């Protein structure tokens, strides 16, 4: 009965002239907002465009992540990373989790180096940074810290995968006033805090993984330096004395060695 009345009400609303509908304030609960708020997507696009325009920048990030053990118990861990970026084809990354790791990309050669093992592996590569993110993932199963930042600004950013997007108000992140957005995409619920004043820089990213009932969450805090003072030479890997070259294992299922 209630459903019938509701349906009838909807029909009545629909049959009204447009002008009247527009002037009628929406009754609470009657007009649900669209699942994907276009303004939230536009904020994401705008941020991506801005990042794409930045030719040189440095990012420092700290992630607090969770892994889930077989019985559902969660363990938390912390890791740090520094990314030095010079578009279009220079990248250097130092990650410091349990062990330090380094990545060098000078536009011709891509090197992964483990200072702890004293071993490195180099492969020729000359693609864009977005292509680098893809290549590392597909060929070597390697994920870059904050790889999303290189995706969101690219023309083929997968915004169509976002099934829900909303604006969640303003919040302070490390003293910076930010606009808080919440998205749902596949099995990831994710939240992004973009600086509300000045350049639209992402300051915090939180991802909740819904594929596991324990719902592990990672929270990345992001610090920016838009005018870094690094030199172009630091993107070329020079093997330290005694370092050993090894061959990267390529994921068998995907592709041949380039």
């Amino acid at each position, binding site marked *: 009965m209630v459903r019938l009345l509701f349906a009838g009400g909807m029909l009545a609303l629909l049959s009204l002239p447009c002008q009247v509908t527009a002037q009628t304030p929406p009754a609470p609960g009657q007009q649900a907002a669209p699942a994907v708020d276009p303004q939230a997507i536009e904020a994401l696009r705008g941020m991506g465009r801005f990042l794409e325009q930045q030719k040189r920048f440095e990012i420092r990030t700290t992630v607090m992540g969770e892994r889930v053990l077989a019985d559902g118990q969660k363990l938390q861990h912390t890791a740090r990373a520094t990314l030095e970026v010079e578009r279009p084809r220079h990248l250097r990354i130092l990650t410091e989790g349990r062990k330090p790791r380094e990545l060098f990309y000078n536009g011709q050669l891509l090197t992964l180096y483990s*200072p702890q093992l004293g071993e490195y592996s180099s492969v020729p590569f000359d693609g864009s940074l977005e292509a680098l993110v893809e290549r590392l993932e597909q060929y070597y199963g390697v994920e870059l810290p904050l790889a*999303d930042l290189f995706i969101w600004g690219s023309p083929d950013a997968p915004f169509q995968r976002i099934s829900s997007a909303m604006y969640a108000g303003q919040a302070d992140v490390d003293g910076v006033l930010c606009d808080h957005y919440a998205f749902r995409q596949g099995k*990831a619920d994710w939240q992004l805090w973009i600086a509300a004043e000045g350049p639209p820089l992402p300051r915090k990213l939180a991802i909740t*993984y819904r594929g596991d009932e324990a719902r*592990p969450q990672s929270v990345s805090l992001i610090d920016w330096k838009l005018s870094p003072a690094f030199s172009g030479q630091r993107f070329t890997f020079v093997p330290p004395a005694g370092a050993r070259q090894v061959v990267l294992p390529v994921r068998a299922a995907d592709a041949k060695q380039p």
Partner: protein
Amino acid sequence: MSERSRFSVLVSAALCALPLLLPAAPAAAGRALQKPGKAVHAKPSVPKHADVPRRPADARTANVRSRSVNNVNVNRNVNVDVDRDIDVDRDGCCYGGWDDDYHPVATAVAVGATVAVTAAVVGSIVNSVPANCVPVNHGGVVYQRCGNTWYQPQGTQFIVVNPPY
């Protein structure tokens, strides 16, 4: 390391640092102090905290069913023990995130090596390790590194773990 040798290391470190510090203007020294992150630009020091004795982690910590998801568009959440749907957007990949133990270099094969070793499943337990294993002492644990696979001793057996480096 004895107290005496530790002291002499400290003294020599201070002496070495002295000539470097002296020519620096006070402003520059202050700036360096305010930016501890500058150390990133130096080559990372090989074994950090190498002298700190470590206990091996409980074997249960190697039994991970979901890893941390740190990127929305690039995800390779892995499940080594149960076959379940794991991907966010793409096909689930095989390794950990950037914050995890996994490093492809640690599973790499040395240039010129001819033996291809298939990696064993992390978490599986064996009574003995293959003949080509190399013992690697790290953090007080003597691992057996066999090509792509790392074994950690557990009682009289061995458990396959992620590369500890």
